[in-house]
């Protein structure tokens, strides 16, 4: 099925409202987006052929509100635990990209019995001085395709390249970046390295070889700290927005991991 239904999940006694797109049928997979914002793209459609896919919007982005009530990762992980309850997800596979990958790893490290499988697509969350993670907001609009994509001629999602004359689009892009800054500023390393060992779910680490935001070397830095069964794949010809740039390849890896 290709058209998801929209659900608003309430947490923190209804103060935090989160938009979730739900589609497909089968074992559950939760997807947490990165800076591109909530989408129902090729990856979601592909997974939905034999999974129930829950694409969850990050609080403070798009139509999801109440971010001022979430102070830190403790609050954010607690929010997801409640959201899983609301969605009726006792156990679920978890896929996260970029910032969403960092959140997915934190959830998997804390809610260990609820995450069956973990897929981290070019996640944030670690820092090595030799390979500084790029600050996407600091990349000028004209330079963003080259920074985010292996093939800069492809179109960028609207939240990453808002039309400068469209004030509504600029405002939403600002809110979306702010919602990610809230948990990742100024360096997206909030102690995850000390918690990665806690993750028990089998983990796939997938990177675009031409990722100019989070260097693929981080795949190894993650692997070194993970104690759960871990697979690392670095795919050539794609950049940081890997599942947008080559959804078929990414889908193949993710499906294989979830099936194994």
């Amino acid at each position: 099925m290709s058209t998801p239904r929209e659900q608003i999940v309430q947490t923190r006694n209804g103060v935090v409202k989160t938009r979730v797109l739900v589609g497909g049928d089968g074992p559950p997979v939760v997807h947490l987006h990165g800076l591109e914002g909530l989408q129902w793209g090729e990856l979601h459609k592909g997974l939905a052929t034999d999974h129930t896919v829950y694409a969850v919007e990050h609080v403070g982005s798009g139509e999801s509100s109440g971010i001022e009530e979430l102070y830190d990762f403790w609050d954010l992980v607690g929010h997801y635990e409640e959201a899983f309850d609301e969605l009726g997800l006792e156990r679920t596979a978890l896929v996260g990209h970029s910032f969403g990958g960092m959140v997915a790893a934190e959830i998997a490290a804390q809610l260990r019995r609820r995450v069956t499988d973990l897929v981290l697509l070019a996640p944030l969350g670690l820092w090595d001085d030799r390979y500084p993670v790029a600050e996407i907001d600091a990349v000028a609009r004209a330079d963003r395709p080259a920074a985010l994509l292996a093939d800069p001629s492809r179109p960028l999602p609207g939240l990453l390249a808002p039309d400068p004359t469209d004030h509504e689009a600029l405002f939403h892009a600002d809110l979306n970046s702010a919602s990610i800054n809230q948990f990742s500023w100024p360096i997206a390393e909030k102690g995850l390295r000390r918690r990665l060992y806690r993750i028990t779910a089998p983990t796939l680490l997938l990177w675009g070889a031409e990722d100019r935001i989070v260097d693929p070397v981080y795949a190894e830095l993650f692997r070194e700290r993970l104690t759960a069964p871990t697979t690392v794949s670095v795919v050539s010809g794609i950049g940081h927005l890997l599942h947008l740039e080559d959804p078929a390849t990414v889908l193949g890896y993710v499906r294989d991991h979830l099936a194994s």
Partner: protein
Amino acid sequence: MKFIFFHLMPYQDLPADFGARYDSVWVTPPNDVLCDPRKVGIYYNQYLDQLELADQVGFDGVGVNEHHQNAYGMMSSPNLMASALARRTSKSTAVCVMGNTLALYQPALRVAEEFAMLDCLSEGRLIAGFPVGTSMDVNHCYGITPGETRPRYAEAHDLITRAWTQPGPFAYNGRFNKLRYVNPWPKPIQKPMPPVWLGGNGSLETYEMALKNDYVYSWTSFFGFQTGKKFMLDFWETQEQMGLEFNPYQGGYCQIVLVADTDAEARRLYEPHIKYFFENLQHVPLHFRATPGYRTRRSAEFAIKSGTMAAVANQSKTARDWDSMVENGLIIAGSPDTVADRIRTASSELRIGNFLAILHIGNMPDELTRQNVTLFGEKVIPKVRGLWDGQGYEHKWWPSGVEARQTSGANQ
């Protein structure tokens, strides 16, 4: 009217191709490549001398402020400068620290303590400025999460004002400041506390905070009174809507002022330095100025949808031509008569009673700055000082320890 000489203390020796070669004057200009500490030492001393001169030629106050990691204003600690000024200015001069960037200090008790020290050292002459701070300073230089800028500011404000007004010791259990014992030694001389001034450039929250707490609101930008007018009139309108009484001394604004014997001479003397200022010292990319999350959702929506941010960014780029800068009020420049006329007009239109004059700009050399300060103090201030006299307004936001100035013949 009250006149304060407000200094930025910039670095004067950026290369001619700075704007083309470097991304920003703030946060990232490489220090070892561009900043010579020996030169900075010379400038600091010249700048303090210039501020002391203002005291001697009839100003009501001297002003300093806080910025970090930049060539635009090199006072990472304005309190150090204010401390030197408290010792070397007369009892008739206010020491205006405009101010300490509250969100940066944890515990924010540090600000309560240092301002109290300054108030004691100056014997009650401190104006305590509580700026939110630029995004460059708060988020990029000091690493504060953008969305925490306002909550930290609000909590620091609460802690500092309570530390000044409430008997110590008491416990303070905040989100960011957790203190079992708050008990600053000393507290300020001024009771209940030093006058608080807020600098702003259009944040709705700052208007409301100034009015709610009975603080001065000062338009603090370099876009002159034509741009400032919209914001100051919004401020006065908010005041009226809140049912509060108008008083020009609750408002201020910052303005670049360049005085010479004639209008033509002003242009000849100052134009290169204005150019240096706008081309180099205002060279900051938008992603540093308007970091997502730095503004509240409400202010971000207002700034983005009204196009304010884009207009401000655009203005700093187009502010190059002397005649249009004078015409648009970005600068007030000319003979003492011209300057006095413009200040009278601007202050009347903005309805403000505190004038923060920026008299050193860009790479202005010491001698020229001293000339500007002297002409302003001796030939401009006396012409405008009485603007709000005889209308029944009392200045309730001036430091209580400042003594009435003995006006000499030169000041008449």
